């Protein structure tokens, strides 16, 4: 009944030291207390932790004395029965006690400290524990992970998706190749995006007009590594609808040869396969934001137009480089010969305003008289003030009405705009005034004849009633004879009245140019048709609505115009009071595109909303805060009064 306690320890160099002690006792104690048989210097062990009792030659019982157990072969227990021949391993705190059976039925208990005395005492890799290694993923690992995920997500996926997108069906042998390609492109627009992941490649949102193409990159970027070609644009924008500015050959001839830097840039651009100057994308740049497309720069026009006469010797266009400094005087299309005798249509010529052209409208209308603050017209206006809403004198807006869009003015209309003063009434029937029919001279003649035929002269009072005349009353007979004669001759008076109407002092003659019967081969009175053009500048665009803050008189010298033939268009000097070139220090810097459009059409030149126009209007309103209110009295704003 003996225990052999074998204490195993190691020197600092790692050499093993074994000390044996024999305890001839049936039961031994294990604990931290100094008096224990097996003294474990271990704070995890209680002072009296357990007892080991030998039961027979080969069996021992290990029993914890307190509530704290111990480990046997990895399991925590408080009591265990051990066959020493089979052996067991006990664990108390950081110590291991290996139970085995020795000679003479000795129970050998090999005691060894297996854990370091503290965590800090354990082996530490200094380079590791003092650095951030282990706390963060490795730099190399992170670098690979980030780089690969970016390359896969932003490069590999879009390219693979592009390469494997559904191939276009080209089996139709009847389809012409180009047509087929156009169909394919159109199909790709409607079918939707076929390339995954390329949205991240878009450098910015498309313009409003192209918003539907957002994400469908391949509809414009048709081929990889090939710049966007005009054909891509023409899939939707039919070249027949987009008016060519000029024949391509002429444009090429007109374009200024770029300088050294420009030539270098052009050569680089062409080396990278950029389409040449004059292509759609040259001017219409995309991915510039979800607003309307950007306005075309002045430079784009002046490349050709700035010094065009040097290259296009036969051009009729003056050089235009900058509105402030280099722009020809306006050339309105003026009617030089009216339609009429021998001419079905009137003839128009473009004449520079510098040559002071006149415009034969066919009307006799002195503006100065109508706008005068005094005189007959003003008096008439005051008389009709309540009825017609006139001011103390006539204003422009009393006769001139703008079109619905406000861009231009409607032709002056006799019935609406003149007749309140210039009445064509000739008879009152039961309070209703009969008027001559305006614009229909034949009807006027017929109406006058009918009038004279159906009405007699006023019956003289001296003629009395129907009482029989006394014989010898010669005076009455005379009156009667005169009356009867007058009554019988009355229809013949119509011709004189007609002549009077169409001649000097007559209702028609006052305003219109009249040709009497016989002259020029016409059988009847002829009124020359009135020409009131709504647009004079056929290649430029002028929007009256944009100039609401100005008075009419600030551009049109109507109050001083004595002749109807005066062309009251302002010259370029007038415009330059506010407008200048794109970069000019003026109230309204104006590029070419403010008035001109490249793809010439009937409409206004394309201007992005919220850009120059709105800004300009806001600026001008701010500038002319005081004059704006003044303008509204005599200017356009008063037209609401007239719109009865």
């Amino acid at each position, binding site marked *: 009944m003996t225990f052999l306690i074998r204490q195993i320890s190691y020197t600092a160099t790692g050499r093993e030291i074994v000390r044996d002690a024999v305890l001839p006792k049936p039961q031994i104690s294990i604990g931290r207390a100094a008096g224990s048989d097996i003294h474990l210097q271990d*704070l995890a062990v209680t002072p009296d932790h357990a007892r080991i009792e030998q039961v027979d030659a080969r069996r021992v019982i290990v029993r914890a004395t307190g509530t704290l157990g111990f480990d046997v072969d990895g399991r925590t227990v408080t009591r265990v029965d051990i066959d020493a021949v089979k052996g067991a391993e006990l664990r108390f705190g950081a110590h291991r006690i290996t139970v085995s059976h020795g000679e003479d039925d000795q129970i050998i208990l090999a005691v060894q400290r297996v854990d370091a005395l*503290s965590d*800090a005492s354990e082996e530490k890799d200094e380079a590791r524990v003092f*650095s951030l290694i282990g706390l963060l993923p490795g730099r190399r690992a992170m670098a690979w992970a980030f780089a690969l995920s970016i390359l896969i997500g932003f490069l590999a996926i*879009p390219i693979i998706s592009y390469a494997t997108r559904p191939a276009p069906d080209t089996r139709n042998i009847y389809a012409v190749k180009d047509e087929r390609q156009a169909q394919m492109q159109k199909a790709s627009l409607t079918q939707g995006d076929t390339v995954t992941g390329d949205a991240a490649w*878009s450098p910015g949102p498309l313009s409003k007009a192209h918003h539907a193409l957002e994400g469908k990159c391949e509809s414009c970027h048709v081929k990889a590594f090939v710049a966007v070609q005009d054909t891509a644009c023409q899939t939707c924008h039919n070249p027949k609808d987009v008016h060519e500015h000029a024949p391509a050959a002429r444009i090429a001839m007109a374009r200024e040869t770029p300088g050294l830097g420009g030539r270098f840039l052009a050569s680089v651009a062409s080396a990278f396969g950029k389409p040449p100057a004059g292509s759609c994308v040259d001017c219409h740049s995309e991915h510039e934001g979800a607003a309307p497309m950007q306005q075309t*720069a002045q430079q784009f026009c002046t490349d050709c137009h700035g010094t065009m006469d040097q290259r296009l010797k036969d051009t009729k266009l003056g050089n235009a480089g900058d509105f402030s400094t280099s722009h020809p005087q306006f050339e309105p299309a003026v009617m030089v010969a009216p339609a009429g005798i021998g001419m079905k249509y009137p003839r128009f010529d473009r004449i520079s305003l510098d040559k002071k052209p006149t415009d034969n409208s066919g009307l006799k209308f002195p503006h100065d008289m109508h706008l005068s603050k005094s005189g007959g017209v003003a008096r008439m206006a005051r008389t009709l003030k309540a009825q017609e809403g006139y001011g103390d004198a006539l204003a422009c807006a009393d006769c001139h009405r703008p079109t619905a869009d406000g861009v231009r003015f409607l032709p002056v209309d006799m019935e609406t705009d003149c007749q309140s003063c210039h009445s064509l009434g000739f008879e009152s029937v039961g309070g209703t005034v009969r008027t001559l029919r305006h614009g229909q001279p034949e009807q006027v003649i017929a109406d006058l004849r009918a009038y004279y035929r159906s009405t007699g002269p006023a019956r003289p009072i001296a003629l009395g009633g129907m009482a029989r005349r006394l014989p010898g009353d010669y005076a009455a007979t005379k009156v009667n004879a005169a009356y009867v004669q007058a009554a019988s001759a009355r229809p013949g008076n119509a011709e004189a009245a007609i002549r009077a109407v169409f001649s000097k002092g007559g209702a028609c003659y006052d305003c219109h140019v009249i040709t009497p019967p016989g002259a020029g081969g016409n059988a009847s009175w002829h009124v020359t048709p009135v020409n009131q053009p709504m647009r004079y500048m056929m290649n430029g665009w002028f929007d009256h609505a944009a100039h609401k803050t100005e008075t009419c008189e600030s551009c049109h010298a109507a109050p001083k115009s004595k002749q109807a033939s005066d062309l009251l268009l302002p010259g370029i000097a007038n415009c330059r009071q506010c407008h200048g070139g794109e970069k000019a220090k003026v109230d309204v810097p104006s590029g070419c595109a403010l008035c001109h459009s490249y793809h010439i059409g009937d409409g206004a030149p394309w201007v992005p909303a919220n850009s120059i126009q709105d800004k300009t209007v806001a600026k001008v309103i701010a500038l002319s805060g005081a004059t704006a209110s003044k303008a509204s009295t005599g200017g356009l704003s008063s037209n609401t009064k007239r719109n009865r």
Partner: protein
Amino acid sequence: MATRATTSRRVKGETRHDGFLTHAGFRWLKIATALCLVVIASYLMIDITPRHNGGSWYGYTLGTIGVLLILWLTALGMRKRAMTTGRWSLKAWTSAHVYLGLSLIVIGTMHTGFQLGWNVHTLAWALMMLVIVSGMFGVAMYAGIPAALSDNRDEMTQGQMLDALRAIDRQLHDAAQPLPHEQAEAVQWSLDQDPFSGGLWRRLTGNYPNCATARAQAALRQWTGARPDTGDDPLERVDALLERKQAMLARLRKHLRLRALLEIWLYVHVPATFALLAALTAHIVSVFFYW
């Protein structure tokens, strides 16, 4: 004249350390500043329609300069592994790396024309800025931390700090032997404590609210607090040792915090650089792919 300048510089170099920031009289700071001014001036003077963007000729020029600079700056990672002196010394190279890297803020941003969005192009720009900002953080840390690190170490090496902790632990272990189990257990908390425990946040803040040693001391003071110190109470010895251990831990933790601050930027700078190279590749390829 030139020789005199060189000699005087050499004499200066012997007496005073010339860091990479001040290298050669701020030569690279001047070059980088000039570069930035040229870029800003040309950005303002050159009229690109409709507005500045990476796709104009000017944008491509800045982009090319930018990408070449980025590649060269990345090469510092290889260059630093071969230390040389002289005109193209590693110090000169590092100086150029820092200042030319900063000038990329101007070059890269002007290249964008301030058109940023949720796309791979802006990703490249953002990564570039992240690399630069982390680099700036690194330089700032390099300016102050080494001195603080040296002050805190008090001429102890890292190994010595660890050894000091171990010595305290051994004494704690011995001193706690006579203690009853509950008290011994509290001491064991401190012994079992890993002085390098705690995640990145603890490292960077140096704040360890649940420190086992502090807990052990607080627990033991429940017994010692109400008793007079007789001088031979093992608990008082343990308490004194725990006090010493806490002081040592505080120094170690400050050391770890300073080292973490000194290292952390590289964990952003280096991976972000490679992410940037990948994003740059995607940026350039995608631009020409959808040309």
